[in-house]
Each structure stands twice: as structure tokens, then as C-alpha cells.
């Protein structure tokens, strides 16, 4: 099978998709990064390769916060930021789309499109309140599997009001409500509403949110959050089929563009890569008072890339 590979290496999950030449998703994987992106990508690609041994990769794209690391590892044709990747994927699946809400592990963003073109976007600032990691953390504190979180929120009759401005305060507010005797589903529904409020106030501040609205990223799995968005925005919120791998789909699309639909040969290193040993290690440069933390990236013991320095001293020739 010939096609394209898209890899989105996020803080919480690593997503890999394989599409055919018509850009239909044939296989998609959602793996927890667990702090080891190289390992996660190797595991995921091995899984794909085991399923279908004669995959022929025409192009590879990487995105997400680990895009440069994994891009160097697999030999990516296109290394793109996640905003562009998400926008490309959303407008590919639905050319009409005008608003993309995206909430991932540590990032949340809003992208406005008009006639398939990004006209404005915003991302959360340094605060990660209201993103997937916080929901994860709260789910495990309450002993609820994260997959059930949304359903439970929908069962609520009287959602309580939770302060959602800061996740630390939200947590103490939740504990307060729980000690007062509110039931869990009401508290969770309150949390969903609080996160949405926080998102719309910070990320979506002043943005002209128009239909169709799509909601993507890992958190889109949470029907409670989706419902809270619909209640707050008074519009229908569409969750696409491949909501949790949209970034990966986007960079597969961009990779296809980069290799001109397969006319140009890909830089992909091949599935032999699965047996190679990749190692990233860091050291502190003592050349000047900046003390840059420089990262060496080695493939089978041979240095292939280096980054993290503020000056050209450590550039690989």
C-alpha cells in the first residue's frame, strides 16, 4: 500500500496516521507519549508495520512539540507547527469550517478560517489550566477512568459552579464542593463548564466564533466538554471522526504537498529505522555564561543532529 505518514508528537499523546494517496485515513494510532517520544514513535510504527508489511511511504510529516526530534529521527519531508497542521486537516475534511477549537494535553488553541484560509488564531499562554493533563489529573484523583469522565458529566442535573481561572484553585474549589456533599457528576459537569469558560475567556477572547465549529484534539473525546461548549456558544459543535489525530492528518497532507504528490522522493529513512538505536543526550555548554543545554541526537551511535544552543558553535556540519 502506498501512502503518507503523519506523526504528531504531543506532550501527552503521540499520534500516527497512515493515509492512502487520496488522503483517506487507513490506520491511526493514539499512543501515550509517557515522557519518551522516541520510544513511543518506534512502538507505534512497529505496530503499523506488523499489521501491513508492505507499506510504501511516499512522504512523512511531523508536528507537535516534539516535531524536530522526531523529524530528525524518521527523516521527515515536512516539519510543521501544530496550528497550521490542525487548520489544514480541519479544512481538508470540511472545506466550509470556520472555527476550530482544539484542546490537547498542554495546549489549547482556537483557529478561525474563512474560505479555507486561516485568518486568525490564538493559543493559551503559559498557563495550561483547562487542558487534557489537568482533566487527567482530576479524573485519577476522583478514581474515574478518563473515558467515563464526559458521560458522567452528562448525567448531572445541577452542575455546581467551579472557579476555573486557575487549575490549582479549581482543584481546591472541587474539593470544597465535594466536602459540602455535592455528588460527583455535578462537580464534574461544573468543572467542564468552568474549563470551557476559561478557554473562551482566554484563548477565545474577542474572537468571532462562527459556524461550522469543529472540536478536535484529545479532549474532544470528552462529551461533557463538548456539551459545555454547545451550551456556552449556542451553536452546534462538530467532533470529526478522527478528532484525536487531526494534527497528524494535517502534517500528512502537508508532506504530500511537499513531495508533490509523490513525484519527489521522500526523505523517509524506511522501516529499518525500527531496528536502529536512537539516543538523545544533553550536556551543558561552558563556552559562555548562557550555559545552553545542548542536545545530541545519535542514530546507532552516530551523531545526526544537535540543537538547543543559542550560537552556531555546536552546529553539525
Amino acid at each position, binding site marked *: 500500500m502506498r501512502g503518507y505518514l503523519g506523526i504528531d508528537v504531543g506532550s501527552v499523546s503521540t499520534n500516527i496516521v497512515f493515509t492512502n494517496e487520496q488522503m483517506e485515513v487507513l490506520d491511526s494510532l493514539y499512543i501515550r507519549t509517557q515522557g519518551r517520544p522516541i520510544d513511543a514513535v518506534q512502538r507505534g510504527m512497529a505496530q503499523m508495520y506488523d499489521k501491513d508489511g508492505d507499506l510504501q511511504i511516499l512522504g512523512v510529516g511531523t508536528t507537535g512539540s516534539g516535531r524536530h526530534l522526531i523529524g530528525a529521527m524518521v527523516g521527515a519531508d515536512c516539519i*510543521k*507547527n*501544530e496550528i497550521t497542521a490542525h487548520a489544514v486537516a480541519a479544512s481538508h475534511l470540511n472545506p466550509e469550517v470556520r472555527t476550530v477549537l482544539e484542546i490537547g494535553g498542554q495546549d489549547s488553541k482556537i483557529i478561525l478560517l474563512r474560505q479555507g*484560509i486561516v*485568518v486568525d488564531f490564538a493559543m493559551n499562554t*503559559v498557563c495550561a489550566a483547562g487542558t487534557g493533563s489537568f482533566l487527567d489529573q482530576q479524573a485519577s484523583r476522583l478514581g474515574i477512568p478518563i473515558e467515563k469522565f464526559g458521560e458522567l458529566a452528562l448525567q448531572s442535573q445541577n452542575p455546581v459552579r467551579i472557579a476555573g481561572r486557575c487549575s490549582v484553585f479549581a482543584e481546591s474549589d472541587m474539593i470544597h464542593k465535594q466536602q459540602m456533599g455535592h455528588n460527583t457528576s455535578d462537580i464534574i459537569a461544573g468543572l467542564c463548564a468552568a474549563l470551557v469558560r476559561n478557554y473562551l475567556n482566554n484563548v477565545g477572547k474577542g474572537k468571532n466564533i462562527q459556524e461550522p465549529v469543529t472540536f478536535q484534539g484529545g479532549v474532544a473525546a470528552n462529551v461533557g466538554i463538548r456539551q459545555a461548549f454547545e451550551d456556552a456558544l449556542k451553536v452546534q459543535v462538530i467532533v470529526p471522526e478522527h478528532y484525536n489525530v487531526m494534527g497528524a492528518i494535517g502534517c500528512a497532507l502537508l508532506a504530500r504537498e511537499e513531495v508533490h504528490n509523490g513525484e519527489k522522493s521522500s526523505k523517509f529513512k524506511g522501516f529499518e529505522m525500527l531496528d536502529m538505536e536512537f539516543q538523545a543526550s544533553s550536556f551543558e555548554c561552558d563556552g559562555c555564561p*548562557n550555559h545552553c543545554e545542548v542536545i545530541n541526537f545519535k542514530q546507532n551511535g552516530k551523531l545526526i543532529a544537535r540543537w538547543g544552543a543559542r550560537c552556531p558553535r555546536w552546529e553539525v556540519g
Partner: protein
Amino acid sequence: MGKTVGIPRCLLYYSYFPGWQTFFEELGAEVVLSSPTNKEIMDLGIRNSVDEICLPVKLFFGHVMALKDKVDYIFVPRMMSVQRNEWICPKFLGLPDMIKAQIRELPPMIKPDVNLRKSRIGLYYAAKEAARPFTKNNWQIMRGLFKAFSAQRNFDLEMKQGKTPLEILELQEFPEPEPESLTLALLGHPYLIYESFINMNLISRMRDMGVRLITPEMMPNSLIRKNAAKQPKNLFWTLNKVTLGAANYFLSAKTVDGIVQLASFGCGPDALINELIERRARREGQVPLLAINLDEHTGEAGLVTRLEAFIDMIKWRRVTG
């Protein structure tokens, strides 16, 4: 060999260094600069400053710490006003006091009050005060001031011709932009947009991406003032007035492909003015605006992601435009 005067390489260094340097050298002093901001200076600044001030002022503390044992005097002007009926941010007014209260074993400070709010004669008093450790000779002071004026004017002219202080003062070189490349306006306090450590080499990043840059320092003052006056009320912060005037101009003249606006976390005037700019940008809706808040965070990923996405967006608009 003359006495040494230390000048911290941050804050208004990017605006007035050529004038200051010439003045002190004319008086027979030797000017010593701290090294360009690095992690050590940043850490020193954060450790030794008060908690509530903005990042660039914290950085100033770091530069003073880096200089203090190497010089006979340290130059910490009390910049109150550089323009009639306007003020510089209050943190600058209190700068010498904050330094004195926080840092032990300082060399004597040269801390003239620079107050031109009522009249430009204020500059003469400031020069006289700054010259005190070196001379009382009025004629020498006037000559120093005159030469400082002309050095400063040359510097300003070079900026008007499209050079940044990074190229003039720090002798950095950037690739020439292609004729059809994007033009972006980079707005914000000079001590943010030219401070490569805090903004994670934003200018060189943008220039390496082939972007042609315009900063407020390259624009005619009259144009900036005229456009700042579009606001119903007159602003009295000089530096923010410049940002606002430049933004208002680009939002209506549409001579750039986009605007990148920097703000410092914890800066009161920025919080207000940048909100005004964002609102106008939204209202007029023609020129894309990217607002970036800078703080102590050293993760480059956030900045790079936003910048790349912004440039992608503009290019995409252009192709389909």
C-alpha cells in the same frame, strides 16, 4: 587613564547609548558596558530585584550586578520624561532608588534626573549632574552635550534608514530580504524588541525566515505622533505612545503584511495599550496581528510555534488572496 563609568546593556541602552557614551567620553571618562544579556545576568537580576516589577527592569538589576565590581561609577539615570507633557513609565522614575535599596556594595551611582516634561532645558541640568564626578567646567559640559546630541542624531538617522540597534550597536549581520518577501512590523518597547535574550532572538529568527522588518524606530516621528493622536484621549507614556502610533498607522495604511506585538508580562502600560491595539485590529480586521507576551519562560517552542504559524497564515492568505 580616566575613571570608568559602567552602563548597563539593557533598557534604554537600545535608545540612547550613543549619546550617553559620547558625553562621558568627552568628559574624559571611560565607558564600560556589561556583556550582552546571558543566563547568568538574567538569574542575577531575578535573584536581586523586587518581585513585582516587569522582566526588563529585573534584567537591569542583573546588569548592575554584573558591572558593579568592575567600574568606578555606575550610570543609572532617573528617566522621568523625554518629551513635553509626557512621562516615561514610573518604574524608570524609581530605578535609582530600587537599585540602591536592593543592591549592596554599589559603586557611586551617577543618577541625574532627566525631566524634559516642561522644557528641554531639563537636559542641561541632567548633563551638569551627570558630569559632576568629572568636571564642573561649564564649557566642557556644553561641548560634551553638543557632541552627544550629534552622535545621538546620527544613531537615530541610521535607524530611520532601516537599521536596528542590533546592527548598529551590537554589529550583528542579517541576510538581506528577498524583494518579494513578507514585511512585518515588530512593535513594542525598544528594550523588548531589541533584547535578544528575553525575546529569544526574535529579530534574527524573523530575518532568517526572510522577513523584512519595520520597527517604530525606523518610522518618522511625526507619522507616529499623528497616528497616536487617533485615540480619543492623549496618552502620556512616551514609549507606549510610539507603539500605539505605529500600530494605528499600519492598521489603517496596510503597508505591512502583518504586525507582531511584544509585551512584557507584568507591564501595566503594555496591558492597556496592547488591548487597545488588539481591539482596533479586530475592528478593522485587515492586518493580521500576533500578540506575544514575554516572561521568564525559556521554552522556545511556544514562541517559535506561534511565529511559524503566523507566517504560514500570512503566506497562505497571500497565495489565495
